[in-house]
């Protein structure tokens, strides 16, 4: 038994969880334990915060005391940063979970003559580490030494020695580094000393909207997610869009969720959507997409389920008023806290920002049903590829949590379907198409189920009406020429129906 586990220990790289949302998934468990990790990025990209969060969460939540050596910030700035994460720096220090040291190096008061080494720094680090039994160390950023000392040859040699020494001591170290000129990760080439794990942070400005991105550039001896991921710096530190559900391994519950409309349920083999499935409702403007969404939400709230409604075109008040006109009153559910309506113009944030903030909102509210109305507004925010990638991740996230998702999509004409532009049809389990049927000078609403995975569904186009009592599907009516709607249907119905006077049957 013992030799087996020993072999495993050698094979597998041990990892130190960061406690940062999403980062542990991205790195498949955390940063390499007992090794240095370089976090690099431009000014204001969040390097220091990432490092701080790693240390502070380690000390406060994961039982791994830490040491912070800061070369640039003052105590006040640092305490503020830590407070922003929701932790009390002084308390952690008092509890002997954390040591903070400020390294200041002022070239004006230092004269250099002859050979020297950085044993002073080593001694201080060793002393700090030993005083709390630290497992984690943050060096933010040793590059500042280059500003204070002029002999770069000595410095480079000493930094190399420092990282080797820290590695020998088995401490998990985060080193931050300012992004260098094109091509290099850091100004002073710190990456050449730290070869185990490199994380790069970036702030990208796109259409005047700033998006923070994180990428694991390198992770020696471990697999990691290679792409760039958006992250936000929120109230509780960093939050990176998780990718845990990329494996298509979510459950497929057999439970059904009523669509909130008996007629529509009937079209979906009598019981409605699958729980945890993703529903797309598409149609041109005024076909009733929002109404279908509202029916689902209202019936779920009635059962006491929590629902979240992302409204990108209407304000909550407007949405509630409009839905009241078709007999769906959402107001009481909002009051009860069962329904949360999140209304925002999509252009307010970047695409990635949207993704992360909605992910966060979902996480906090923990709904069983999420409505996104409409997804087409995202198309304006990024390229088709970006939108598709965002939708994929959002759908994955919903499925991973077993949330039933309903999205509406505005198609501009009868032929070109916007959802095909967005290219997400393969993500959708149930696709409901709403359309206007123009016959004989009138427009009638038609509803059909284009697809619904895993259930026999109706293939008819059904007519439906909206009234004070809500949505009502009219019994499918087929004339000799096929589907009939509106007055044509009524005419055919009148023709087909036996005359009351005859009383007999045909």
């Amino acid at each position, binding site marked *: 038994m013992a030799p087996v586990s020993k072999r495993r220990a050698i094979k597998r790289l041990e990892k130190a969880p960061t406690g940062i949302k999403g980062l542990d998934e991205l790195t498949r468990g955390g940063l390499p334990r007992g090794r240095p990790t370089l976090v690099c990025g431009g000014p204001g990209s969040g390097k220091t915060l990432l490092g701080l969060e790693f240390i502070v969460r380690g000390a406060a939540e994961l039982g791994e005391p830490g040491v912070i050596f800061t070369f640039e910030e003052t105590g006040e700035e640092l305490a503020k940063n830590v407070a922003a994460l929701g932790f009390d720096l002084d308390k952690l220090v008092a509890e002997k979970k954390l040591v903070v040291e400020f390294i200041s190096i002022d070239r004006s008061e230092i004269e250099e003559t002859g050979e020297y080494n950085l044993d002073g720094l080593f001694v201080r680090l*060793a002393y700090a580490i030993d005083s709390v039994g630290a497992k984690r160390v943050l060096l933010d950023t040793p590059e500042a030494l280059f500003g204070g000392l002029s002999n770069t040859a000595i410095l480079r040699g000493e930094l190399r020695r420092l990282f080797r020494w820290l590695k020998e001591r088995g401490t998990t170290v985060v080193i931050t580094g300012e992004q260098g000129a094109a091509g290099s990760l850091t100004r002073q080439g710190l990456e050449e000393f730290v070869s185990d794990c490199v994380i790069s942070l970036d702030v990208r400005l796109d259409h005047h909207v700033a998006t923070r991105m994180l990428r694991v550039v390198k992770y020696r001896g471990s697999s990691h997610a290679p792409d760039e991921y958006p992250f936000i710096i929120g109230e509780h530190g960093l939050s990176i869009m998780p990718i845990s559900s990329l494996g298509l391994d979510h459950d497929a519950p057999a439970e059904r969720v009523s669509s909130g409309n008996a007629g529509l349920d009937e079209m979906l083999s009598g019981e409605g959507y699958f729980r945890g499935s993703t529903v797309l409702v598409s149609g041109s403007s005024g076909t009733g997409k929002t109404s279908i969404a509202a029916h689902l939400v209202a019936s779920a709230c009635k059962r006491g389920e929590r629902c979240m409604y992302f409204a990108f075109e209407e304000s909550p008040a407007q949405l509630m008023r409009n839905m009241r006109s078709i007999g769906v009153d959402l107001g009481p559910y909002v009051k009860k806290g069962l329904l949360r309506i999140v209304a925002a113009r999509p252009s307010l944030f970047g695409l990635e920002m949207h993704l992360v903030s909605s992910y966060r909102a979902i996480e906090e509210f923990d709904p069983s049903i999420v409505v996104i109305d409409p997804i087409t507004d995202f198309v304006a925010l990024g390229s088709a590829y970006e939108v598709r990638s965002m939708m994929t991740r959002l759908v994955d996230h919903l499925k991973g949590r077993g949330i039933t998702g309903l999205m509406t999509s505005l198609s501009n004409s009868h032929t070109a379907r916007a959802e095909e532009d967005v290219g997400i049809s393969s993500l959708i389990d149930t696709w409901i198409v709403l359309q206007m049927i123009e016959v004989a000078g009138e427009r009638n609403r038609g509803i059909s189920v284009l697809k619904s995975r895993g259930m026999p569904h109706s293939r008819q186009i059904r007519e439906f009406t909206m009234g004070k009592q809500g949505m009502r599907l009219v019994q499918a009516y087929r004339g000799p020429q096929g589907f009939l709607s509106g007055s044509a249907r009524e005419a055919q119905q009148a023709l087909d129906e036996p005359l009351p006077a005859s009383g007999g049957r045909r």
Partner: protein
Amino acid sequence: MATRKRAAARRTADDLLDFWQLRLYVAGKTARSEAALRNLKTVCEEHLQGRYRIEVVDLLVSPQLARGDQILAVPTLVRQLPPPVKKIIGDLSNSERVLVGLDLRPIVLKGAL
């Protein structure tokens, strides 16, 4: 009485400016730290005879002292008195630079007062 007090105060101030309190930080007894101490003693004997005190701090023995003077490199020589604090890092092999670093110009200082 008041005059005497003031005179005494001035005397101590003069004494302070005229007295070099130096602290040499090292990490263990290495060839480099020995050389630094030797070089320092030579410079002091030559320029500050009788007006200096050297204190050697071995950081391997008292690591907690490194924090106060912001020591990173060793050897580091810190001029604690007269103010302002000055630091010279290295083995002090270049006595010219040591003199510059220590601001060793007592005559100019006295003349200025």
